[in-house]
């Protein structure tokens, strides 16, 4: 698969963060956000095209998982939110 361009990578990054916002569960939402940022930061230094392409396709499949699970979690979201979402 062709090496993804910078704009494609940025789009993937933004889509992952957007899907993180869809999660109603405080812990999953924060984890998705944090893990995305840390993973992209860690992979910033990748130089070999094959490893960049592999990381990109891994990110794309994670995005699909996140989108599906955001729907599932919203269907079963508890009525009362976590304490962390209420105070603050």
């Amino acid at each position, binding site marked *: 698969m062709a090496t993804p361009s910078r704009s494609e990578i940025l789009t993937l990054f933004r889509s992952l963060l957007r899907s993180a916002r869809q999660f109603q569960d405080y812990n999953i939402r924060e984890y998705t956000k944090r893990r995305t940022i840390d993973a992209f930061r860690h992979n910033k230094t990748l130089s070999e095209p094959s490893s960049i392409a592999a990381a990109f396709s891994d990110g794309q499949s994670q995005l699909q998982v996140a989108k599906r699970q955001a729907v599932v*979690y919203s269907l079963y979201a508890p009525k009362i939110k*976590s304490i962390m979402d209420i105070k603050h």
Partner: protein
Amino acid sequence: MASKIIASTVRRSLSPKLLPLIRPLSTAAAAAAPAEPYDTSAGISMKGVKISGRPLYLDMQATSPVDPRVLDAMLPYFVSQYGNPHSRTHLYGWESDEAVEAARAQVAGLINASPKEIVFTSGATECNNISVKGVMHFYKEKKKHVITTQTEHKCVLDSCRHLQQEGFDVTYLPVKSDGLIDLNDLRNSIRSDTGLVSVMAVNNEIGVIQPMEEIGEICKEFGVPFHTDAAQALGKIPVDVNKWNVSLMSLSGHKVYGPKGVGALYMRRRPRIRVEPQMNGGGQERGIRSGTVPTPLVVGMGAACEIAMKEMEYDGKRAVKLKDRLLNGIRDRLDGVVVNGSTERRYAGNLNLSFAYVEGESLLMGLKEVAVSSGSACTSASLEPSYVLRALGVDEDMAHTSIRFGIGRFTTEEEIDKAIELTVNQVEKLREMSPLYEMVKEGIDIKSIQWSQH
């Protein structure tokens, strides 16, 4: 007909609270229905406690939330690919079997074993039962002795007690005050008829990591099978069945962000360890554990193990960072805080603290917005202080005030800060009221007081 329409309109217009009165429960259902926690607009009220929202979860050793990626892997096997993996005649069975074998390889990959050495069970408790009772019953002609530790999980200790009733000898090795066993004790306890040594890798209450490689070497030297309960260790510290020289290993799904109700038993093939099965039936799982293998749960455990393999380093570093933040945050504002168990050989995600001059039950009562545990979930029903802390030699009063904070993959810095806030406030409040603390502040040594008896 018209009356039915009227009745349904009336029912729809009434508030939801009155509906249960119109159609009261039948006697059988009424007896079975639990007291419902009622949702007030301000929060939840359950068991006499009112909280404004769901507590923040810091009890990862009791169980861990299912990772969304694991749930994603499991759902197809609940929804459409629901076949029995042992059905050989149709697609449903074949695809289910394929999924089970893929999961087996994922679990084996995490512990550096071969997929042929993994047997799926219903959890680590069942694995421990198979290991302890199954091994000893198989070799009962020649081997009559089992060695274990005083800090093992209840299921291992109970299985050993069961063996004792059948006539086997069991040695319970004591632990030092840091929670680790003395290797010389182990060496000296091994007899010619020792059939099994069982030592858990990471303790569920205090989080100490036993010297697994050294124990494995000793067992290899004497030719004794080595069983370990690695339920808390899997996915958190590197687990290698060859480095540790284990013959049997119990693994649990719900401690690695997988589903509850599934576990795996590692059984070495070279040299072969044999067990007497505890579940008899159709010979599934190589005759070791009969019963239909629950495909969705097993797929979940496999996915969880694969994720754990990728995330172990990241999660481990984070656990250390959060543990330091928690411990320093509490120690900065409180004195008399003791960490139970070794501080060096420890899994960072398990922080067991004792607060001096504070009563444990009242501390827990005030910490309702944080989900923590005191003692392990298995023993917190009784009022006895945890046997693990007693084995460490912790004083009764300190053992009663122990709190176990469990840090996991999904714990955030804000949750840690809030936990610090709540714990410190509650401890300070209790110490304010405590006359014992006043006396300590004045410099009186509590242990030297002669309490008068009335």
